[in-house]
């Protein structure tokens, strides 16, 4: 368990944090995730990568936790978590590099779009694995990623960076 925990705790934490937007909640949730894994270790059938299994459990717990909270509280927490010291995109474009603006725009995506982008780019999940974690068809995974990227381009354009698409 220590090996498994040591290897996966950081990325599961980051995945949950990006979903719930609150560090304390994310820490509580990953404790629950690994406790569930410990309880269900004999049920793991090896049909998917362990990290995929962990992320699917983490996602379920994160979404359940978010459903239990009033919307106002959730929105406030999420906003607090993504707020940083950077200027808004319009101002930032004048003095920040493109990378910083891109990161700012990534944080402005909807939870659904952030999730698919994180799973593909950061957690290196294949189309099939994203479908398994999120619980949607593979074709929908590709379409969701496409629209997440499209929305990102729109945010970039509003921030002064026109990538020529869409």
């Amino acid at each position, binding site marked *: 368990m220590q090996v498994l925990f040591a290897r996966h*705790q*950081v990325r599961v*934490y980051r995945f949950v944090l990006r979903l719930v937007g609150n560090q304390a909640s994310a820490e509580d949730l990953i404790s629950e995730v690994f406790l569930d894994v410990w309880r269900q270790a004999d049920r793991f059938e090896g049909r998917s990568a362990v990290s995929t299994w962990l992320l699917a459990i983490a996602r379920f717990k994160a979404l359940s936790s978010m459903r239990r909270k009033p919307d106002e509280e959730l929105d406030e927490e999420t906003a607090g978590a993504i707020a940083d010291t950077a200027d808004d995109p319009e101002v930032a474009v004048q003095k920040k590099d493109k990378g910083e603006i891109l990161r700012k725009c990534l944080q402005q995506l909807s939870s659904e779009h952030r999730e698919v982008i994180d799973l593909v780019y*950061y957690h290196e999940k294949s189309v099939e694995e994203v479908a398994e974690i999120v619980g949607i068809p593979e074709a929908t995974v590709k379409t969701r990623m496409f629209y997440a*990227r499209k929305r990102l381009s729109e945010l970039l354009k509003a921030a002064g960076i026109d990538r020529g698409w869409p």
Partner: protein
Amino acid sequence: MMKTNENNAPDNLEALLPWHAAGTLNRRDADVVERALAQDAELARHFAMVREEMTETILLNEALGAPSARVMENLFKAIDKERKGARNEATSGLGAWLVELFSPRVLAFSASAAAIVILLQAGVITKLVMQDQGAIGSYETASAPTSTTRGIEVGSFALVRFAAQANVADLTRFLDSRGVTIVDGPRPGGPGGMYRVRIARTYLSPDELDRAVKEFQAAGSNLVSFAAPTE
């Protein structure tokens, strides 16, 4: 303009670009995308955008930090508590065996016993861990030089993630040919294993390092899925 079909859905090749950048396509699809990229300048431009997005997504996630020590404390307290409750009932099956094996109380009996249990845990859990690492052919070789090079901090460095489809022989050859050495990694929590590599044996200015990293990634585009300058 990114290609879409008449239903405004993404063209299949376009749609695959993010997974190609992350190195998570199967060999057949990766080859198809590679060929298309070589022939279609507009598609290649979109691929460059995708790689930019991936780089910033990685940097954004890496900046989120790590959970505090209380997570591990709480977890093993909870496990110990459940184990005590289940002790009388857990008499058979793998679940019961794992209950015993993972118990902090077992670990506390003595240093030598703990060492044996940890080894056993590693063995039991190997199936799980290796499943996750199975797609990463570079894991063993890439981490191997760490012990021989760690501590030599002279030079210029980059943070690198190798493509899932990279094989050991190609990776070794590529790194040798560039005179690049892995000095640390895989970083705990880094997805698929993040490695710190020495790009040059001398100090490079930020601009020089940026160029060297880009050149390194371009030269090994089929082996390196992510590269960024680091200290």
